[in-house]
């Protein structure tokens, strides 16, 4: 409990929220006890995040997702110029003998793809919200962002999902 309270106050100072992972031993490091959820992002129930800045939105997968997927060894991404649709797959990651679809939280035109991921797919694990970003999109329907979850809602969603399994 003390560790959880310290983590919570630290998270508040850093402006991040934490979802707890039940049944995780306190002997693990802090970064493995809690999935990181960042303020300022919106979240899909398929565990992708989107950061809307001006005309461009950046998309990736969340810390919760990368932790559950395991070590990412391969990433398949679209080409710039292609289009993505809300809720539909735009690429895939490979981890632990599985390909897992990545679904776009919003619709739009792909304007940039993170080329570093072809050589260093592990950036998705080590830096899911920064260096592990996947695509940048010019949103075609910015109102779609309103249908996504905020940080608190997504944190609760992850906790409920983990608790129910």
């Amino acid at each position: 409990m003390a560790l959880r309270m310290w983590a919570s106050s630290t998270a508040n100072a850093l402006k991040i929220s934490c979802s707890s992972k039940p049944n995780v031993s306190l002997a693990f490091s802090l970064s493995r006890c809690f999935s990181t959820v960042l303020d300022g992002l919106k979240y899909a129930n398929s565990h992708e995040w989107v950061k809307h800045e001006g005309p461009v939105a950046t998309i990736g997968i969340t810390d919760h997702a990368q932790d559950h997927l395991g070590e990412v060894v391969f990433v398949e991404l679209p080409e710039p110029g292609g289009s993505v649709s809300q809720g539909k797959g735009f690429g895939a990651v490979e981890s632990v003998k599985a390909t897992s679809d990545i679904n776009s939280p919003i619709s739009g035109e792909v304007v940039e793809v993170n080329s570093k991921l072809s050589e260093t797919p592990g950036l998705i694990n080590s830096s899911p919200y920064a260096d592990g970003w996947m695509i940048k999109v010019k949103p075609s329907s910015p109102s779609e962002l309103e249908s996504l979850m905020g940080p608190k809602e997504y944190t609760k969603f992850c906790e409920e999902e983990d608790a129910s399994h």
Partner: protein
Amino acid sequence: MLIPQTKNIGLPLMNLMRFKGLPILQQLHIEEQLLRTSSENWCIVNDGTNDPTVVMGVSGKPAELLEIESVLDDQVPVIRRFTGGGTVIVDHGTVFVTFICNKEAVPNLQPYPRPIMSWSSSLYSKVFQGIGDFHLRENDYVFGNHKFGGNAQSITKNRWIHHTSFLWDFNVQNMSYLKHPKRAPAYRSARSHLDFICRMKDYMPRSTFMDKTVEATETQFSLRPIQLEAIRTCLEAEFCPSSRFLTNEELEAAAVALQS
């Protein structure tokens, strides 16, 4: 008065398709289409395939995984499949078992690789109960520390597939087409293929394995046998599967790139 069969009441429905000697590429195409376009649960059992064929995972690099010169000289077909995981060589001695499920089909199962493999290994534990020290070890199906089944998965938003190629028997010469992979489980301990794998036929008759697998599946699903012909018209003609043969040109280019 007929007494209705009640044992499967309340279990989710799963369609069961059984094949003998279905070509592996055709099996992969059917699987990918059912994963992507069906909303039902499926179990596919294919008792052997026709010609020896190399099957790589979605990110497999031929130069790293195959003895390309031998593969080209002997004209061994090479497939890149739509699921993750490693490289296998399959033939008439391979038994294939596939599960394609909606994410709610197995209660309390999170649609991620490890939970799915944990579920599948518990199902196969029923099949191999008391036989050969069966378990899931670093994502492989083993007897002791010898692998006899390679598995792979693909997970979409609402569904997943887990398929396995079981080495009921294998041809020693065929293993020579495969290189020692860069990414190998720790328990392999740098053993060669022949020291690492084992034959299921040393543990269980072929038909017993398939029957017991169906029985184990029936403890969780209400199985409905289906023939391929019955669904052929339902399979969308416009679906384009991604599993495919690699061309000789692609293999030759990989060999050249390796040498440079």
